[in-house]
């Protein structure tokens, strides 16, 4: 009995560790590697704990709307940040990085895809769900490509989609595992998985330019520390880390 109550107590208190000396960051899945490194340095500098939660920006937004606690939200597009700004969950936000979309194929390239037009063939294509920024950008890029490959190209390629993943990392892993023939991911994800996937660049004129936004949550209990994390993200060291992981940062 005593053992049980101790267990229960531990279980109940385990969920309450955040909010003290530390901050919780909800960040788009594509920021995973960069933010892990940023958080590690920030932790070492300030002697505090940074808790990271990565998922599709839309998932994080719904979690925040449903009452999840976070000090910082970093979104892979403007839409989800704007929605939180409108509803008063975030007071202000700032763009901090840019990315671009690429096609990845497994290292073994089973469908023998050499260029963008090869997506027209018998290909198992995986993209992110259209609610996820990466999915929306993929569809946008496909329609941009119609200027080069003719009307109907987007429809044709979209009919090859076999799965819509809930985050861009889901797309990456399906391709890296070799289960899918090709996928649309960010250039930064492809960089993180080098050795397992091959990259096919989109023609620059057809590419999209995803912008990342970050802001402090209005219900944050640790706004100063949260702001400091954002300052670090925008500092020259922060930008260096983002660049190292393939993001474009402003001058």
């Amino acid at each position, binding site marked *: 009995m005593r053992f049980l109550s101790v267990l229960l107590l531990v279980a109940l208190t385990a969920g309450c560790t955040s909010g003290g000396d530390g901050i919780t960051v909800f960040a788009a899945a594509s920021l995973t590697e960069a933010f892990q490194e940023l958080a590690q340095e920030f932790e070492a500098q300030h002697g505090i704990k940074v808790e990271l939660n990565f998922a599709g920006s839309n998932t994080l937004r719904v979690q925040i709307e449903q009452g999840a606690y976070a000090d910082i939200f970093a979104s892979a597009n403007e839409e989800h940040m704007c929605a939180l700004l409108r509803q008063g969950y975030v007071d202000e936000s700032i763009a901090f990085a840019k990315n671009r979309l690429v096609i990845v194929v497994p290292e073994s390239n*089973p469908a023998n895809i050499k260029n963008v037009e090869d997506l027209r063939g018998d290909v198992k294509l*995986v993209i992110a769900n259209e609610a*996820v920024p990466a999915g929306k950008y993929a569809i946008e890029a496909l329609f941009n490509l119609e200027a080069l490959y003719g009307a109907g190209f987007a429809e044709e390629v979209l009919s090859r989609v076999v*799965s819509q993943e809930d985050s861009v990392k889901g797309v990456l892993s399906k391709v890296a595992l070799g289960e899918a023939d090709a996928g649309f991911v960010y250039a930064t994800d492809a960089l993180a998985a080098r050795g397992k996937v091959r990259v096919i660049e989109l023609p620059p004129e057809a590419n999209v330019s995803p912008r990342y936004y970050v802001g402090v949550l209005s219900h944050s209990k640790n706004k100063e520390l949260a702001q400091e994390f954002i300052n670090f993200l925008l500092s020259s060291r922060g930008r260096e880390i983002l660049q190292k992981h393939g993001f474009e940062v402003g001058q």
Partner: protein
Amino acid sequence: MNAFALTRALTGIGVAAFILLPVASVLISAGNASPEVLLSYEVLAAVKLSLLTATLSTLLIVIIGTPVAYHLARSDSALRRFLEVALNLPMVLPPAVAGIALLAAFGREGILGKYLASIGIALPFTTAAVVIAQTFVALPLYVRSARAGFASVSRTFEGASYTLGASEFTTFLKVSLPLARSAILAGVIMSWARAMGEFGATIMFAGNFVGRTQTMPLAVYSALQVSVEKALVIAALLILISFLILFAFEAIPKRRYADA
């Protein structure tokens, strides 16, 4: 009423509330949803796909599970012990592990999957993959129930059948099977319910695509990332199906002649 009885009654009420409150909350919240959500393409596609795949996998389970259940009930060989362990495995495996295990075996780069791929069969991302995932997790439920049914059929009846000149197969078909029917029916309902609820193995092995691999539980998960309303509506439908399953379970006639 003494203190012990009171505690028991209060705990009972508490437990019932703990289970019923969340379920009722879904139904109440979903009740506020607009009817268009219910009739949206994704929701209808998920319902159709779930009913189809759960029924197909249950059929498959009955076909391959019945002989196995009978063997488990009647044999005492080494194979039986081995089967016993193998069959219990999917029940204790976490669904995500089942998913990655199916990928490792039947995926395009999987142990067996690469041979299948070389003859042009690719399972991941297909409706067939959904059925395989459901069969994998739900098979043990059916076999356990059917096996208990066969085990409770007295061998006296089978013996009588043999003495009257019936073959082993005829005896199985005309004597054992009908006498075990309640347990078999219970197994069918349980495995169908488990197949309807399958999530982890499906999303990992079959992917997530509307109309092809997005069953109702996957649709709940995907919808929650966009609109809570849609997720609640699909969840409410799954709850209604669960109630139907419970009623069906209650309606199974109780065994009468199985014990000699």
